[in-house]
Structure formats: structure tokens, C-alpha cells
């Protein structure tokens, strides 16, 4: 069953409220849940909401980029919300912003 405290569908948007600790352990659950929704419903935008996230390591980068590649392939996009300075730094070091911006410019 999908965890409704993590996944919220708003029309064709999927809001993913990331957990307090975004590591390899929690990334697995989010990857499985998000991909199930992407495969069964029409989703055009994923919003990653980091408001509750106090910790993230490089597993979070793989999880975000993995979903990004999937939705981008289907013509959708992603946005990132509620990022703290620390989370932004981690995302930046992992090249997440570069990746997302580059694709947007190329449209």
C-alpha cells in the first residue's frame, strides 16, 4: 500500500514529502512508491518537498535524478521545494540543479 504521508497526487502533479532522514534506506521506499504511481497514473510534474528533511546523503541525489529521468522521458518535469541551505548544498554538489536547469533551457 502506498504511504499517503509521503505521496500526494494533485491532478497530474505528484507531491513527494521526503522523510526526515533521506538516506539509502528511505530512498528505496520512495523510489518504489513513486515509480508505481508514475507507471499507473498520468503524472506530469513531481514536486520533491524537503520541508521535513533534516538529513540527506548521496542516496538522495540518486533518488531525485532517477525520478527526474523517468518523468522527463514522459515529457514531464520536477521541482524542488523546502530545501534548507544544507540540502541545497548537497543537491548542488551532486549536480542536480545543473541537470534540471540544462534540460529546461534545452526545451
Amino acid at each position, binding site marked *: 500500500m502506498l504511504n499517503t504521508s509521503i505521496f500526494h497526487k494533485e491532478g497530474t502533479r505528484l507531491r513527494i514529502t521526503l522523510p526526515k532522514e533521506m*538516506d539509502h534506506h528511505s*530512498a528505496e521506499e520512495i523510489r518504489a512508491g513513486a515509480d508505481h504511481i508514475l507507471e499507473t497514473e498520468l503524472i506530469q510534474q513531481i514536486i520533491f518537498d524537503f520541508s521535513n528533511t533534516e538529513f540527506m*546523503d*548521496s*542516496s538522495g*541525489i540518486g533518488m531525485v535524478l532517477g525520478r527526474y529521468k523517468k518523468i522527463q522521458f514522459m515529457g514531464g518535469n520536477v521541482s524542488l521545494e523546502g530545501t534548507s541551505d544544507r540540502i541545497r548544498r548537497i543537491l548542488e554538489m*551532486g549536480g542536480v540543479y545543473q541537470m534540471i536547469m540544462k534540460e529546461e533551457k534545452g526545451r
Partner: protein
Amino acid sequence: MREEHHMKLEMESRSENEGFARTVIASFLLRMNPTVEEMNDVKTAVSEAVTNSIIHGYENEVHKIVISADILDDCITVTVEDFGKGIPDIEKAMEPMYTTSPALERSGMGFSFMEAFMDELHVTSSVGKGTAVRMKKKIRREKAGNGIYSSVD
């Protein structure tokens, strides 16, 4: 007087233990009165090393991971060790964005994060025997009022 502390933890390579390892290291580090940033740096580095042992060293089988940490004056040294697969080419493995597990959505940034967030990083590994990652960081020891303890009397 010199300040010396030592801890050692043996745990199973289950992904739930990634958070457990971070919590243990964080409470050990607290006695150095680190800043929030220093605390996050050490937690991130340890999380990367433990995750690597779980997914690469043991390929998700449950075996033993040993974490030890030493505080000597204003430095903390943490070692994360597994007895798994080992790394054939350490230099290559440490390159940013290099990963042998793209299918597992690894970003290849683990070693880069350990390097960025700690002052020193030493990796020793032997194929078929295992891997040890030793990391060291100087903690600035915030004056009273600036560290994590600031809210504690």
C-alpha cells in the same frame, strides 16, 4: 591534559542500520561540542561509508560492519570496515560520479562527499577480503553558546 575517547560498534549490514550508525556517531561527537554543520558533515560521511559497505561490500547480504571512532584533542577519526567484496581499483572508485551500480541509482558521489566533509580520507581495500575507510576531521570546538550544546545548561 590530553583528551582521549574511544568507541567501537559492531552491527549487521542492514539498511536500517544506516540511521543507527549516524545516531551513534552523533552522540559520540556531541562531547566535542561541534557546530551543527560539523555534526552534519561527520554524519554524512559516516552514512556514505556504511551505505557503501551494505550495498557494494556485501551486495545487500547481511554480514558484519565495524565502526570505530577516536577523539584525540580536537580531532575525531572514524573508521568504517567491512569484510566483503573489496575494491579492485581504489583510485578509480574515488573519482567523482564513478559508480559500479548505476542500476541501483547510485550517484557515484559517496567518496566525494566523504572527502568534502572530512579533512582526511584513507581507503584501504583488498579484493575478496574487505574495505576499511578511515576519515579524520578537526572540530573547532565552539565557544560556549555557539555549539549544539548552546541550548543545554
